[in-house]
């Protein structure tokens, strides 16, 4: 199956992502904030750093993470609660939970535009916001959406129109590999199973096992690129307004 045989509405190839943009330190009151956009999907995430106390039911011997998802319009329903839960668990696995016990870190996600791959965009935005707030992390969580067309070919970063047409798609979150800065290193020969692992995988629709693994491979390769972009955007950041009123 040729890579170019799938005709995508906006002219991308199967492995091509939409243009990425990330701006950090946008809000004045929040401790950390980031706006991440993939094409027309735009998400603004804000982080309020460790606040005293944990919610009822949370383990007070560890830090806890609270995620609030705000859709663009409408009431908060089950879908938003599901996104909150997935985001919370994903971020819990990358934050160091034992550093600040009995504290709550709040991450608020506001959807500014939804054109497919909303949850991956939100995960990427939240990670950028956490970095902006200075919350210590083990590694970044880099997310991508991978869809499966009827022909069996995997397309990356589908738009909303594409998501509705295709047979199945998966949101995949991979850890940020620290070796990605080496230019000539061939893919994935890093130490430890952690680097090759998947943090989160959410699928919609039916896909055969072989195609799912294919999506994983594509997704991992694309995430390596996104994490490069992440790093570059952090490095090139001019230290902005470091004085923040609480």
């Amino acid at each position, binding site marked *: *199956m040729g890579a170019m045989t799938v005709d995508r509405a906006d002219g991308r190839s199967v*492995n091509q*992502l939409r243009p*990425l*943009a990330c701006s950090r330190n946008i*809000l004045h009151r*929040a401790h950390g904030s980031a706006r991440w956009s993939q094409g027309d999907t735009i998400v603004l995430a804000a982080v309020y750093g460790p606040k005293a106390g944990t919610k009822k039911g949370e383990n007070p011997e560890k830090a806890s993470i609270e995620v609030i998802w705000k859709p663009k319009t409408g009431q908060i329903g089950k879908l938003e609660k599901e996104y909150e839960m997935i985001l919370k668990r994903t971020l819990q696995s990358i934050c160091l939970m034992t550093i600040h016990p009995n504290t709550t870190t709040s991450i608020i996600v506001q959807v*500014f535009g939804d054109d497919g791959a909303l949850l991956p965009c939100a995960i990427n935005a939240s990670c950028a916001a956490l970095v902006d707030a200075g919350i210590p992390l083990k590694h970044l969580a880099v997310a991508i959406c991978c869809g499966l067309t009827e022909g069996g070919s995997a397309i990356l*970063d589908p738009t909303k129109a594409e998501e509705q047409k295709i047979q199945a798609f998966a949101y995949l979150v991979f850890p940020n590999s620290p070796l990605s800065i080496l230019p000539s290193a061939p893919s994935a020969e890093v130490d430890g199973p952690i680097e090759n692992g998947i943090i989160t995988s959410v699928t919609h629709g039916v896909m055969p096992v072989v195609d799912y693994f294919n999506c994983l491979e594509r997704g991992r390769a694309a995430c390596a690129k996104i994490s490069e972009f992440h790093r570059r955007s952090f490095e090139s950041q001019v230290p902005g307004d470091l004085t923040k009123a609480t």
Partner: protein
Amino acid sequence: MEQRLANTWRMTNNEKKFIESVLASDLRVDGRRPFDYRDLTIKFGREQGLSEVQLGQTRVMSYVTSQLVQPYRDRPNEGTLSIFTEFSPMADPSFEAGRPGEFAVELGRVIDRGLRESSAMDMESLCVVVGKSVWSIRVDLHIVDNGGNLIDAANIAALVALLTFRRPDCTLGGDDGQELIMHDAEVREPLPLIIHHLPIAVTFAVFGEGNIMVIDPTHKEEMVMGGKMTFTMNSNGDICAVQKAGGVGVMSSIIMQCLQIASAKAADITSKIKHAVEIYNTERASQKANHYLLEVANQVSLSDVIMKEKQVENLIEHLAYMPLDELENSNQGDALAVDTRTKHESISQGRYTRAFVRGPANWDPYSRGISSRLATSFPTLPGPSTKVKEHNVVTSNEMTVEYTVEHTTGASSSSTRVLGAPAVRPHSKGPKSLKDAVKLRTRRKSGN
């Protein structure tokens, strides 16, 4: 929860006393005069009906949607307008998620009164079939950053969103002439809402004994103030709404004075809004026209790689094309996956079009600590293709379009680019190198 109370931000006594005492000499903490507004920035989203307003440090996003519903029984020929305010917890650590608190309700009510009771919007034009279906307009206001004076900012955001919102055209048709057909945007141009005038809210903060007034308080001034008054007026000099809920008593002579000032400010803000919306509308109209004329696709094939280019129609301000070349050792040899796809819709409209910028660049959110979008050409993917028996092994990965960001100087000068005619910048074909990137950047800077 007591734990939450521990997190509330409290002002120090020094700050409080300083703000109060300095106001006696007509000075404000951020250097403004008592009756000066902060800088107003109005931005639009790609969708129609989405707006983002920044008033100093306060940011509000507004989104307008419409739906066909049954009208109220006592008003069978009028549409409905509903305003939902969201004090997002991201705006202020003291905002709680969940049910709107009293300030959120008050804000929603003031804006609602200003729009509805002054008949700013024409509700009868929203009627489709009397007694059966009318348009219900829903305005969602999201407070994203609380820097003080939320009412004014939210009001402007709501007005801008309503002015740029377009509802689908629908006609009666079908077999029996009773069926409602909604027309797609492609088929029939969507219609704007009919808005007769713009009610602008102007908020005053009262200090001292009720004799010191300042306009557009910041959130620190709001913590110190004795009371607050909001006047909603339009540029014709009509008072649409007045809100003063408790607080320090103010003499009627001072209220009259404030009304005069509010009237002048309302006229000023109205002209800014109209200017911004006009620019946005003309840009959108020209985009539609250019979209079909200027799209040029050049296809050049290099071994197994397809390279495409398209022309950029508009230069949105910090849009600089800067590709980095990384020739990798790949199985395909000289494979150069560079896709200079700067398709206008996905790039420029993915970000907010800056239609209107006023004031010094340090209020510009986009110049503050924005990372550049970097373009990278990605090497071909060797791995997965070997597993799937694909003949064409080369796949070009994404190429992001980037920007360089002019951190402090660029914003105000580059905004003039947007206000002028759309500039078309053709991109040269062929492999790009880092030199080109650097050159382009300096060229832009010198152009500024």
